[in-house]
């Protein structure tokens, strides 16, 4: 018996739950006050947006919405590692990374408000719309990266998926082709430990999700997903490597879903007692705040100013969202093909003449 291959999975963390550094050496950027404040602000803003969206749904002004409570460090962390030239293939809980990459909060709200115009991004023009069918976005990312590779562009692609989604064949097929074609993709796993009501413990027998990359021969790392410094540092390295022909990286971000799966869910049906108590002790926003305070770059005063700004910013997005009238019936037809077949044109006329009142949020 001879050993023909060996592997190991590393876990990285820079800040513990109390915001104390646990690593010998901090990334250089993690000492830059402006960078840290921007990341902190983004996380606070996402939490505020999620809170507002939840309220909109509860008051009948929006459909199903998936909050990212407790997982803000993941989306903000890897989203902020992307440049405008990079491409993002998000999943439905990806609002944090999408906003970091230029999607507006108003677009996010429009989308979950049942309006395709929410996927017509003003800024992130090449980014994919939210993928609802789980794991499919991973393959789109490999295709975008293939185009970049064939054209010799120094850009990269990021895609995010939940830990439950890694059970889908598409996830693995994407890893495999990214591996053999050495594609510049960063695969982010948001391991929030739940797939709706299904705990990670019955999703896979793996001790880590990072190790799934071994099946594709690509590099993988596990990070503390509540430590934005760990998430972002891993993402910055993966992005740099990807842009320079170094190929794909899988980053497992271990976190916890501190909210219901979506507004349509009630986690009390299945979540063990006091998982949330310990969960809230680990949440990412307070952790970064404590770290910034320990560096002496953040105080109560700044906190209040920032929160006031963020609340106002989110409120503006909400107001614009609520002020957007529903699209007209012909919009159902005008983006089906570049040119609408004559047969369907008749239906278009008919739909216009049979316009139904309503179409509220």
């Amino acid at each position, binding site marked *: 018996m001879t050993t023909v291959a060996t592997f190991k999975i590393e876990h990285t963390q820079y800040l513990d739950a109390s915001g104390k550094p646990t690593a010998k050496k901090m990334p250089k950027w993690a000492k830059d006050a402006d960078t840290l404040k921007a990341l902190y602000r983004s996380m606070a803003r996402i939490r505020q947006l999620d809170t507002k969206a939840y309220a909109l749904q509860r008051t009948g002004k929006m*459909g*199903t919405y998936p909050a990212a409570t407790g997982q803000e460090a993941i989306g903000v962390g890897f989203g902020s590692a992307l440049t405008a030239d990079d491409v993002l293939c998000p999943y*439905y809980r990806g609002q944090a990374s999408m906003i970091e990459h230029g999607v507006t909060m108003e677009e996010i709200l429009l989308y*979950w*408000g*049942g*309006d*395709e115009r929410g996927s017509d991004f003003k800024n992130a023009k090449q980014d994919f719309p*939210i993928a*609802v*069918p*789980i794991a499919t976005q991973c393959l789109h990312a490999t295709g975008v990266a293939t185009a970049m590779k064939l054209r010799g562009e120094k850009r990269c692609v990021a895609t995010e998926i939940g830990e*439950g*989604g890694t*059970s*889908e*064949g*598409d996830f693995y097929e994407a890893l495999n082709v990214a591996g053999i074609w050495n594609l510049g993709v960063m695969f982010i796993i948001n391991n929030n430990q739940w*797939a*709706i*009501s*299904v705990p990670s413990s*019955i*999703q*896979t027998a793996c001790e880590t999700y990072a190790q799934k990359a071994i099946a594709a021969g690509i590099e993988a790392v596990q990070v503390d997903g509540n430590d934005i410094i760990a998430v972002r540092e891993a993402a910055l390295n993966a992005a740099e490597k990807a842009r320079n022909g170094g190929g794909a990286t899988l980053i497992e971000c271990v976190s916890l879903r501190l909210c219901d799966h979506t507004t*349509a*869910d009630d986690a009390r*049906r*299945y979540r063990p007692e006091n998982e949330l108590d310990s969960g809230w002790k680990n949440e990412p926003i307070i952790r970064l705040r404590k770290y910034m305070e320990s560096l002496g770059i953040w105080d109560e005063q700044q906190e209040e100013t920032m929160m006031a700004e963020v609340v106002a910013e989110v409120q503006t997005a909400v107001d614009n969202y609520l002020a957007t009238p*529903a*699209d007209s*019936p012909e*919009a*159902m*037809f005008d983006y*089906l093909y570049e040119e609408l*077949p004559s*047969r*369907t044109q008749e*239906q*278009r006329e008919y*739909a216009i003449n*049979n*316009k*139904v009142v*309503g*179409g*509220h*949020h």
Partner: protein
Amino acid sequence: MPAITLIEAVNMALAHELKHNKDVVALGEDVGANGGVFRATDGLQKQFGEERVIDTPLAESMIAGLSIGMASQGMRPVAEMQFMGFIFPAADQIICHMARMRHRTRGRLTLPLVIRAPYGGGIHAPEHHSESTEAIFAHIPGLKVVIPSNPSRAYGLLLAAIRDPDPVIFLEPKRVYRIVKHEVEDNGEEYPIGCCFVDREGTDITLISWGAMLHETHMAAAKLAEKGISAEVIDVATVSPLDIDTILESVEKTGRVVIVQEAPKAGSLGSEIAAEIAEKRVFSLLAPIGRVSGYDTVMPYYRLEKQYMPTVDRIMEEALKTVEYK
């Protein structure tokens, strides 16, 4: 006997079969502790245990392929696809294996299994949660495709589906999961698969529909009655194999037909029904076959879905046109 909703009838049928046949197993994503995202399996895991009501990993092709393997051993898996929009990863297992195993093995291996899936629009759901793609599976020989339109039929037809010796795709019109209640006795009595139901007898026009749209169709029939027009209403119920005889009989009687469906028109089940009539009773027709359907475009995201789905008004317009046709 308390009146129950369609979703409660599904739950009751599942419980009944789980109780009376130890080979029956319910499986799928979130069917366990959560009881399914629509509560179809609510309480069943508590009652029957984790070996009878099984939360699976998140993979639809796996759910279908695994069910095939279980069924080949004589078990009767009832698998849930959380929404019909997510059945497509399982298309290969369903089309290439589920539908063909009996044929391929000359009857040596059979697959007594059910794939359940909520389908259709009208509940303000996220993208990919509102389509009506029954025609795809209705075109596959070897499958049976059943769509209950109300609580009693949901109970009786799901019992029949679970007891059926062959694979059944059981599509649940989620828009009407909770809008009507029937008094349904938990007596284990099934409804026949492969038969249309004549819901309402009439002489002037035949209205044909299935699933949730049957409700708008019935409202239209009532409005027509007010105008002195007697409409016969047929619930297709089993969309494959199609019970065309019942439909043809009605056509002979009325000579006028309107088919009502939520799905896009082109290549739909309505097309199949119209084609059969055109082939077998074309000269019984006193008017062209009317079709009220979703449009031949992508099911719009929910803010526009009202514009897409057939309304009572659209059914009325088409029915009157058809009745008045000379």
